[in-house]
């Protein structure tokens, strides 16, 4: 095993190997989930002039626990 791979935690390595064995269609089926996100999912369309505007809007409007605030 390569040195780079040796530095990856065993659990993650197993997950990467397992994903690599799955066909793309299956990988995507497992990956996309839908759960309601308050505020974020409540508008059908939003556009922001700058990424800074978007980041600020997220911080000012979304619940903190969604994780969109900057560190």
């Amino acid at each position, binding site marked *: 095993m390569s040195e*780079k791979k040796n530095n990856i935690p065993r659990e993650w390595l197993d997950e990467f190997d397992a994903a690599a064995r799955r066909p793309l269609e299956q990988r995507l089926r497992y990956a996309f989930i839908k759960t309601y996100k308050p505020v974020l999912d409540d508008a059908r369309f939003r556009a922001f002039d700058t990424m800074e505007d978007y980041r600020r809007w997220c911080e000012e409007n979304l619940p903190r626990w969604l994780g969109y605030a900057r560190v």
Partner: protein
Amino acid sequence: MPAFEYRQAEEIRSVLQRHGVRYLFIGKSGAILLGFPDTTQDADLFVDRSPGNGRALVGALRELGFDLTEQQAREIESDKDFVQLKNGPFDLDLVFAPDGIERFEDAWQRHVNVAGFPVCHIDDIIASKQAAGRERDRESLPRLRAFRDYWLQQRKDPES
């Protein structure tokens, strides 16, 4: 709205290609296409910002079933950095100026083709998440960086 499906990814690929849209999958959806095992809610597209590409994108989105008003279409075609669409068959984020990536052309030069899906290189995906600096990104970055090492090694030596 149900979760994004592979069939819809295929529709994005074929419709955007037919309309000649220059774009790349980015964010976690891009990483997942590269093989990163994780979950996400929507697809993120990094779109080349040019008037012609914007018009082509609006045409493609309408064909995919996004219900865009004229005003919304103009906003997508204009100089917005970020557009969030939840008015179609699936949720889609359009990113025209992702944090951490200077120019679309740079990302295009480095991009990876996964079964016909144009995807940002893992280094660009990591760079954009790192530059965004959100709590959710800070949590996912260590595992994403480990996946980068794995992915690069697999490309170099598929038998490893």
